[in-house]
């Protein structure tokens, strides 16, 4: 084993320090055209009268594409996971978020492309936008999406992710205190140093060569093939070094849009987003709204958790149902809570659709759970390390979706944290391990709630 523990060079290290790493924007192909997009200036509107004739006639403009040019306008990126298609590649009758792409221009240079975009005319009939997830359920809320204001296609056509475990009513009855909290982490931008970029080259043999910054090369290839309705062997996708992605370059659509322009113009086409576009129009980590009510005992046991999550998906579903699903499985965090009532909704708003970002779906609930554990300790006047160690996942404990833990690390991590903060734990807590619960660590409310790791 000569690699483990050894200092190995990065395979791309030398390229990076000599400026030789080739990112998509560094690729030079003769005859390249520049792309600019017409984007919705409003949050929500009916759209009509889209007219690109002036733009198409401008000298230096080689192609303009709108929804009419897309063979399959709506393609479900995760239809294989049961999430139906809901998002048009380019807006058709309406716009649902500020920045939504409506039309694209490929021209000789950036300046001409910008002028051509300005020459496209379209009419908007603005509608009241829905921007606050909490309002989505109001009777008088604006309707954002063809499915309503929240996703309704979980298995069994359920309109939420729902977890019920044990008896939350018993837990609330037996509790000494109910500790409540509302947690609302804001949207987070990935801010990769390299903005979204794609270069598509039409080849003489009818194939398209696609240079993309995607993090998910084969995934993106499938998306292009689906929208264009061409077989995969018509596409050659050249991936390469991604200038930072962090989850934000998985649901890219720039390749598809450039492919359409390349087909229509017969020229190589490159689209590099400006930093402003990256901030205003690219997908973000979702904002979340989480409400937690924990039934706790005076001595720090958490008997049950009642939780409501509203996940702000923005204007379209993209990967949000998947993110919420992961979130639901982890809604007790690193701790064991036997009685659960969880309801989570993927809510649609008139905001930029949200997407994956490191720890997709789970960072939100980790944040909420950890903050809530400290709140519990605070309310009960107990030590925050002790409350955590008591309720920590142990071998044989089960997750919200009944996975039996065989190797949980909560206890050792909390003890390491205490060590790192120079906090001396009381003897019985310092002696804790992840071993299966017994004695004081197996109170009445957990008896019969645990699983046998051997069975899995």
């Amino acid at each position, binding site marked *: 084993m000569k690699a483990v523990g050894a200092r190995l060079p990065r395979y791309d290290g030398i390229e990076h320090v000599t400026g030789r790493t080739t990112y998509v924007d560094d690729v030079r192909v003769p005859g390249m055209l520049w792309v600019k997009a017409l984007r919705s200036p409003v949050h929500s509107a009916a759209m009509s009268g889209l007219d690109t004739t002036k733009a198409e006639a401008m000298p230096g403009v080689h192609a303009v594409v709108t929804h009419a040019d897309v063979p399959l306008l709506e393609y479900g990126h995760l239809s294989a996971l049961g999430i139906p298609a809901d998002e048009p590649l380019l807006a058709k009758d309406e716009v649902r978020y500020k920045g939504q792409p409506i039309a694209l221009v490929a021209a000789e*240079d950036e300046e001409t492309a*910008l002028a051509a975009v300005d020459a496209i005319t379209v009419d908007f009939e603005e509608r009241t936008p829905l921007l606050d997830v909490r309002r989505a359920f109001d009777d008088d809320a604006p309707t954002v999406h063809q499915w309503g204001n929240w996703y309704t296609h979980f298995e069994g056509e359920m309109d939420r992710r729902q977890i019920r475990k044990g008896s939350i009513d018993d837990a609330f009855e037996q509790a000494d205190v109910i500790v409540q909290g509302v947690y609302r982490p804001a949207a987070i931008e990935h801010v990769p140093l390299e903005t979204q970029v794609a270069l598509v080259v039409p080849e003489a043999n009818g194939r398209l060569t696609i240079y993309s910054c995607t993090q998910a090369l084969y995934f993106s290839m499938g998306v292009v093939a689906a929208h264009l309705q061409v077989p995969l062997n018509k596409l050659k996708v050249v991936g390469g070094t991604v200038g930072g992605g962090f989850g934000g370059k998985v649901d890219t659509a720039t390749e598809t849009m450039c492919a359409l322009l390349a087909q229509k113009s017969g020229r190589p086409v490159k689209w590099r987003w400006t930093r402003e576009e990256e901030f205003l129009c690219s997908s973000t980590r979702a904002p979340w709204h989480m409400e937690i009510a924990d039934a706790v005992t005076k001595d720090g046991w958490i008997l049950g958790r009642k939780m409501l999550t509203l996940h702000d998906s923005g204007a379209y579903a993209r990967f949000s149902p998947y993110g919420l699903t992961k979130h639901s499985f982890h809604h007790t965090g690193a701790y064991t809570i036997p009685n659960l009532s969880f309801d989570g909704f993927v809510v649609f708003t008139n905001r930029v659709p949200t997407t994956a970002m490191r720890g997709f779906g789970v960072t939100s609930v980790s944040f909420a759970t950890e903050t809530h554990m400290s709140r519990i300790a605070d309310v009960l006047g107990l030590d925050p390390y002790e409350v955590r160690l008591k309720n920590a996942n142990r071998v044989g404990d089960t997750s919200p979706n009944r996975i039996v833990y065989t190797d949980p690390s909560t206890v050792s991590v909390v003890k390491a944290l205490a060590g790192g903060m120079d906090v001396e734990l009381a003897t019985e807590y310092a002696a804790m391990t992840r071993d299966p619960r017994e004695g004081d660590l197996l109170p009445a409310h957990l008896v019969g709630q645990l699983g046998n790791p051997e069975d899995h």
Partner: protein
Amino acid sequence: MTQATEVLLPTSAAEAVALFGDGSGVTIVAGGTIVLPEITHGRIAPTRALMLSGAGLDTLDAEGSTVTIGAALPVARLAELAQDVEALAQCALGVADYEIRRQGTVGGNVCAGAGRDAPRGDLQGPLLALDASARSIGPDGETTEPVADFLGHRAGRLLLDLSFEKPAASAFAAIEYPHTHEYTVLAVTGVRTAGGEVRLAATSLADHGTRLPSAEAAAGDPDAAGAAAVADVKLGDDALASAWYRERTLPVLVRRVLSKLEEAR
């Protein structure tokens, strides 16, 4: 985009003035740190661009009791005034980062219009507190006026230089937004002249920087001065902070500056 622009490259101050004319249709490019992004992103399309890089307006004269700063002096060079005007040097070294300070000019910083997302013009504060004179060219020809007046009609003028008397003491206090470079949320500069007069100015307000006359009138009592300062300014909400926050922190900065000036006696 830039092909259609007539670019003027004067090699002396006199030539710059002559080419500027009455300023109509002229876009000034000094360091370029503010103007170039506007051009790159298609927000302005200059027809006549006056590039000042070779016009010799980057002078700094601090020999005698009067300091004269050429408008095209890089912001970083104000560090050379650390002994004479500590507040101005300190303010300058808080602007952006090493590279931007060497490229951006004093004139660009002073003349900058309000930023779209965050305030600009940090240097306006110390120069106001110094009661600097601004010499500039405009439709009416050459004018020398207090910088406070210049700020009121700075758009469309070519700033040539700024002059002020070296103070007996100066002090600077700011709230910086922690970031890669620094953004100034709010700043106050105080100056005590050789004659004992105390002047105060603030920047990162809703509009350009201003003097704080009510605070100056109460300068002997820092608490009263801090409280009075709020009436002298118009505060705004922006990407860095809210007016609410600035209203509460302005008195603190005023008190800090006055107490530093006191220590410098």
